[in-house]
C-alpha cells in the first residue's frame, strides 16, 4: 500500500512537472492575486490538482444561453497568464479572437470591465468571418510565445482542433481560453483536450426569487480535475465571484424595482 501511494505521488509530481516545465508564464504572486480576485472564496484547491491553474495550455469556458458571464469569466481567466516570466511588471497582450455569428450574442465591450487590482494588459481584438481563419489565428498566436493569453470565441470545434491548440499553447507558453456554446454531442459534450473546462449559467429566476447576478459555476472536467459546482454571486462592480450560501437577494438598497 505505501508503495502504491508513492507511485501515485510520483505520477502526480510528474504530471505537475510536465505542465510547468521550464515556462512559467507569470509570477506566482500576480497569479494568486488574480485568482483571489476572480474566484474569491471558492475552494478551488479541492478540485484542481497539483500545479493549480496551469498558466500554459487550453482551457474552455462553456456558456449556455447567456454569454455575458462567460465572457467575463474568460477574460478573468486570461488575466492569470498576463505577467512576464521574470516577474517584471510589464504585461503581455491578450488576444481576443471572435468569429462573427459564432455565438450570436454581440461583441465584447471592453468599457464594461472594471479596473482590477492587477494592471491588466490591453486586449487586441481580432474579428474574422470564418472558423478556419479563427483557428489558424489562434494557433499562430498561441505558438508565437509573444502573447500571454488568447481568448478564442468560435463555433463548436472538434477534438483535433483542440489538440492542435493545446500543442500550440505548450510550444509557445501561452494560455488559451476557448469560449464555446454548450452544444450536446450524442448526449454529451464534445470531447476536448482542455486542461480545465468551465461552465457558467445564470440561475433561473422567479417572481419570488429574483436573480440576475447569481450563476451556477461548474468545473466540469479536464486533466487532473475533480468536477465541482458552485452557486456564485457576481459582484456588479468588480465582476468577481463569491459563493452564495445561503442565496442572497441581488438587490441593493439603492436600486429601484419596476415589475
Amino acid at each position, binding site marked *: 500500500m505505501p508503495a502504491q501511494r508513492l507511485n501515485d505521488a510520483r505520477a502526480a509530481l510528474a504530471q505537475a512537472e510536465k505542465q510547468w516545465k521550464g515556462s512559467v508564464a507569470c509570477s506566482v504572486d500576480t497569479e494568486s492575486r488574480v485568482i483571489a480576485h476572480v474566484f474569491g472564496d471558492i475552494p478551488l484547491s479541492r478540485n484542481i490538482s497539483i500545479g493549480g491553474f496551469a498558466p500554459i495550455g487550453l482551457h474552455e469556458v462553456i456558456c449556455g*444561453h*447567456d*454569454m*455575458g*458571464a462567460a*465572457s*467575463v469569466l474568460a477574460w478573468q481567466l486570461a488575466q492569470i497568464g498576463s505577467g512576464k516570466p521574470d516577474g517584471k511588471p*510589464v504585461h*503581455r*497582450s491578450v488576444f481576443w479572437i471572435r468569429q462573427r455569428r459564432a455565438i450570436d*450574442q*454581440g*461583441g*465584447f*465591450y*471592453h*468599457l*464594461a*470591465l472594471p*479596473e482590477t487590482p492587477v494592471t491588466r494588459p*490591453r486586449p*487586441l*481584438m*481580432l*474579428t*474574422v*468571418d*470564418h472558423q478556419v*481563419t479563427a483557428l*489558424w*489565428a489562434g494557433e*499562430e*498566436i498561441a505558438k*508565437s*510565445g*509573444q*502573447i500571454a493569453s488568447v481568448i478564442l470565441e468560435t463555433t463548436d470545434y472538434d477534438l483535433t482542433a483542440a489538440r492542435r491548440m493545446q500543442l500550440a499553447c505548450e510550444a509557445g507558453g501561452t494560455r488559451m481560453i476557448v469560449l464555446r456554446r454548450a452544444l450536446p454531442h450524442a448526449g454529451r459534450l464534445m470531447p476536448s483536450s482542455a486542461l480545465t473546462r468551465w461552465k457558467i*449559467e*445564470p*440561475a*433561473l*429566476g*422567479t*417572481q419570488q426569487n*429574483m*436573480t*440576475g*447576478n*447569481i*450563476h451556477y459555476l461548474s468545473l466540469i472536467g479536464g486533466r487532473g480535475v475533480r468536477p465541482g459546482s458552485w452557486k456564485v*454571486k*457576481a459582484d*456588479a462592480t468588480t*465582476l468577481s465571484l463569491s459563493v452564495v450560501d445561503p442565496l442572497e437577494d441581488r*438587490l441593493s438598497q439603492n*436600486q*429601484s*424595482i*419596476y*415589475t
Partner: protein
Amino acid sequence: MMSPPEIPRVITRVDNRGVFICALNAAAQKAGVHGGMRLSDARSILPDLDNIPEQPDLYDSHLARMIRVMDRYSPWVARDRDLHNTTLNGDAGLWLEITGGSHLFGGEGPFITQILQDMKRRGYAARVAIADTAGAAWGGARCHPGKEADRILSLPTDHAIAAEFPVSSLRLSGDIIALLSRLGLKQLGDITPLPRANITTRLGPDVLLRLDQFYGRLPEHLNFELPDHPWLIKQGFGEPLGDAANLAHAIETLIARLCSDLRNESLGLRRLIVRCTQVDGHTHTITTTTGTPCQSETHILRLLAEKMPGVDTGFGIEQIIVYAPWVEHVAFRQVRLDRQQDDTSDALALAQLIDRINHHLGPNDILYHSAHHASHLPERAVIRQPPTGSIKPERLQDVPLPKRPVRLLEPPEPVDVVEYNSTGSPTRIRWRKMLIDVLWADGPERICPEWWEYLDRDNYAISQMTRDYFRICDQKGRVLWLFRSGHAGQDIWSVHGLFAG
C-alpha cells in the same frame, strides 16, 4: 507641350530627307501646319513661323521628370517609345499600371481627374484613359467618345464602344492604316469579324498582333522605368527560372541582399514589391507591407511565402525586381555578435506576429485595439485603433461611465414589447421569436442624441433619437440592456447588450 497660343511655333528634326516638323503647338496646327511637314512648306503657309530645333536631351529630361511625377500614382510607369519615334506630332505617352491602386484616389474617375489636374498644373495637355490592356488604354486615351473623367474601357462590357474606335487606335504604321482605309476598314468593328487568316495574308501580322493585344488575347511587355532608387534590386536571368523552388531561392537571395543594405543604413522597409517577369512578358507582382520598419529577411520571406504559391512561372521567369518604395529609420536595436537580428525583443516579435496575422486575414477580417472615445452613444464610445503605432487610451480618465454591458449587439436587435407596466417599462417582450417574462427592470438611463456630430452612418435613424435604456432580467436569469427610442406613441424597442450580472 502648351505654349502661348498666339505664336505659331514648331519643333523641327533634321534627317537625310531634310528638315521636318516633329512637334507643333495649337496655333500652328490651326493654321494648317501638321506634323511631318517640311519646314519650307510650313513657312509658305506661315512665313513668321517660330522654329526651334529638336533637343532630344531636353525632351528626355522632361519625360524623366514626368515619370517621377507619375510615380505618385503608380510605381510602374512605362514610356511609349514607339510613339516618339514614329509620330511627328510631338506627342509623348506614358503607361501606368494601376492595378489595385485607383481606390486610393477615390476610384477610377477621380483618379483620371486628379492626373489631368496635375498635368495641367504643370503646363502639359494630356488625355487619360483606363483600360484592361495597354493597347486598349492607348486607344481609349485618343478615341474614347466619353468625357475626360469617363474614359474607362472595360472590354467585355464596353465592346460596342471599342468597336467604334478608328483603326489608328491600334498603333499601326501609316502604310497599313492607309491600306485599311482603302479597303473600307475604318473602325475596329470592321476588322474583328473578318477571318483571322485572311487578315494576316492580306495585311501582314501586325494587325492581328495589335488587335489581340488590344483585346488582351496576347500579352504586351512594357518596359517600366525603374526609379533611380537605392532600395531597388533588379536581377535578370540568362536561363529562365522554370520551377517554384528556383524562383523562391532567387527571391530569398535578393531579399537577403536588400535587408543587408537596409541594415547598413539603419533603415527598415515598410513596403516591399517583388515583380517577376516571365519570358512571354507576363508579370506577377507581390506587394507586402509591414506594420513597423523591418530588416529581418526571415520575417519578410515568411510574409511572402503566403503569396508565393500564386506565382506562375509559366515558360520561365527571366527577371525579378525587388523594390522597397517605403523605408523608415529604425530605432537603435542591439544586434547579436553573429550579426543576426535579435528577434527576442518583445515589441519587435509582437509586431512581426501582427504582420503575419494581417497578411492572412480576409477582406472583412479586422485586427484592432479598442479605445475609448468621448461619446454618450455606446456604439461610438468604443473606436477601433490600429494594432501598431500610437493609440488612444483604453479608458478616458475624465469621462465617467455608468454601468455598461459586457456584450454589445451591433446593430441593436429589434424586440416587440408585449406588455408594459404603469411606469412604462416592459414586463413581457418577444425577442428572437421567444417570449420573455421580465422579472425586474432597472432604469431608465436617458441618452440624448449627439446633435453636434455629423450623423452619417447606417444607424442614423436610431442615432438621431433619444434613447431610454433599461436593464431587465428575464426568467432565465439573463440581464439584457434594452432601450426605447422613437417618437411619442411610436416607441421602437431594441436590445443593445447583455450584462454579466
